[in-house]
């Protein structure tokens, strides 16, 4: 596989290793130590750490600043960038800002609607969409040009990612949508949390049959349940997430004090099964406000120690 950027994540995938990424949400304040503490919990067990961009539209420390903090710790960051809050000027500007600190990974997203967050009366921007953001980063990197056509001095060298949700509707365009992102230039995908493994396998099969899995690295997204309440919340309240009834039942049938342990067990079993799915090149472990469990999940699935690449 041809290497296009200095990204460590790209190198790990190119070397054929199963990659492991995780994510940290920045604090609702300016204390950089929150990022440092969260990163320290997981840094030895993952190849790169995503920093979310005002997730669920709740105002937080910016993803770019938090990514720089990771970089200063010597860690590999994935800059999440949503098109909700910035127009094409600000997006390109922030991409250059990240590149100035040698942040080599970007995840292109549209972002949750602002009505979910702390500023529901605010405007959204959506000057471009997530697929067009993929095109924008590739254009800046590969052509060395701004969208306006002018040359960029020292173009950004970024490995370009996006999200994919095999569980959102309508299912029939979920693979065509992946194809669109690949056509736009995406190089890695971090999927929505996978609980319905059968459906995920169906999606991967269709993608494989179309020859898409050779063109993109799919990192399967997993999130452990902390409790049956969380499982129910994910099932019923989070748009675009499917949790099978038997999984909720399994959590419900577990005594409350044992539920966190059971949630981790389910997560580990899922990873083991996902490892067998053709085209899965790694895992994106999203332990929401439960980062301390990432090392255990990674170790128990045989994904530790992490490989080193030059």
């Amino acid at each position, binding site marked *: 596989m041809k290497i296009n950027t200095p990204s460590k994540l790209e190198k790990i995938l190119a070397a054929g290793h199963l990659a492991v990424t995780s994510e940290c949400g920045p604090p609702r304040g300016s204390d950089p130590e929150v990022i440092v503490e969260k990163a320290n919990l997981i840094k030895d067990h993952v190849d790169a750490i995503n920093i979310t961009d005002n997730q669920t539209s709740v105002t937080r420390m910016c993803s770019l600043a938090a990514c720089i903090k990771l970089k200063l710790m010597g860690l590999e960051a994935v800059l999440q960038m949503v098109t909700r809050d910035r127009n094409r000027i600000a997006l390109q500007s922030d991409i250059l800002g990240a590149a100035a600190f040698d942040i080599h990974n970007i995840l292109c997203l*549209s972002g949750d609607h602002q009505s979910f967050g702390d500023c529901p009366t605010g405007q959204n921007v959506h000057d471009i969409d997530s697929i*067009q953001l993929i095109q924008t980063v590739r254009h800046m990197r590969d052509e060395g040009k701004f969208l306006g056509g002018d040359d960029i001095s020292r173009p950004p060298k970024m490995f370009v990612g996006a999200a994919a949700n095999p569980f959102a509707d309508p299912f029939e*365009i979920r693979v065509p949508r992946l194809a669109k992102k690949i056509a736009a230039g995406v190089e890695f995908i971090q999927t929505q949390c996978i609980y319905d493994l059968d459906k995920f396998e169906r999606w991967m099969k269709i993608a494989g049959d179309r020859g898409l899995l050779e063109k993109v690295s799919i990192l399967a997204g997993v999130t452990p349940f902390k409790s049956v309440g969380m499982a129910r919340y994910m099932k019923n309240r989070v748009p675009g997430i499917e949790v099978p009834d038997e999984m909720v039942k399994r959590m419900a049938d577990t005594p409350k004090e044992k539920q966190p342990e059971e949630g981790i067990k389910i997560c580990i079993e899922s990873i083991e099964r996902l490892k067998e799915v053709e085209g899965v090149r790694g895992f994106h472990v999203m332990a929401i406000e439960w980062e301390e469990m990432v090392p255990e999940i990674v170790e128990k699935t045989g994904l530790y120690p992490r490989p080193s690449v030059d």
Partner: protein
Amino acid sequence: MIVADKKPIEEIIEEIKGHEKILILGCNECVTVCEAGGKKEVGVLASALRMYFLNQGRDVKIDEITLERQCDHEYLEEIRDAIDQYDAVVSLACGVGVQFMAEKYHTTPVYPGVNTCFLGVTEKRGLWTERCQACGQCILARTGGICPVSRCAKRILNGPCGGSTQGSCEINKEVFCAWQLIIDRLKALNRLDDYEQIDPIKDWSTDRAGGPRKVEREDVQQ
């Protein structure tokens, strides 16, 4: 049509409470169809205001006129001889009519009596929904006749986003996912393959972003 909704009467009273001779000016176009500012609504508002001022012990003159349109000179001219009788006008036209009134009769205060909402349709009596944001560069040919700019909460040109669930938008189960509608329609037209064409970055300079817009047609100016 331009869809508007009535302002709460308390807000209108707050606007006009310092005046004594008030004209309630309706419009016989869009706001009549959406039952916010036609002759009937002018009558209802005028009666309510008369009642209010009577109860306040105030002698306030409230007159009613409904014009054919408030967005054309010729109809607005119809009140030129009457306008000096009033020290304020409450226009129940859309924001376009209110402003054209204010431009034409610039020494008479004009207050809005409705909130102008969107360009939309009457789905059924009492239910109007949005269809167009007047972006100035129509893309409906590519999207099966359904507009993601006005009907997707994120105006995503290459949708749907991950929040589309069973045909609904993530913001509200009662809002259709525009991209589900587009996909259903492309399928009905046997054009689902078109879905995979990436819609290019849009030129928003013909939208609000480009500043106040105008359409100038020399061929019809003679």
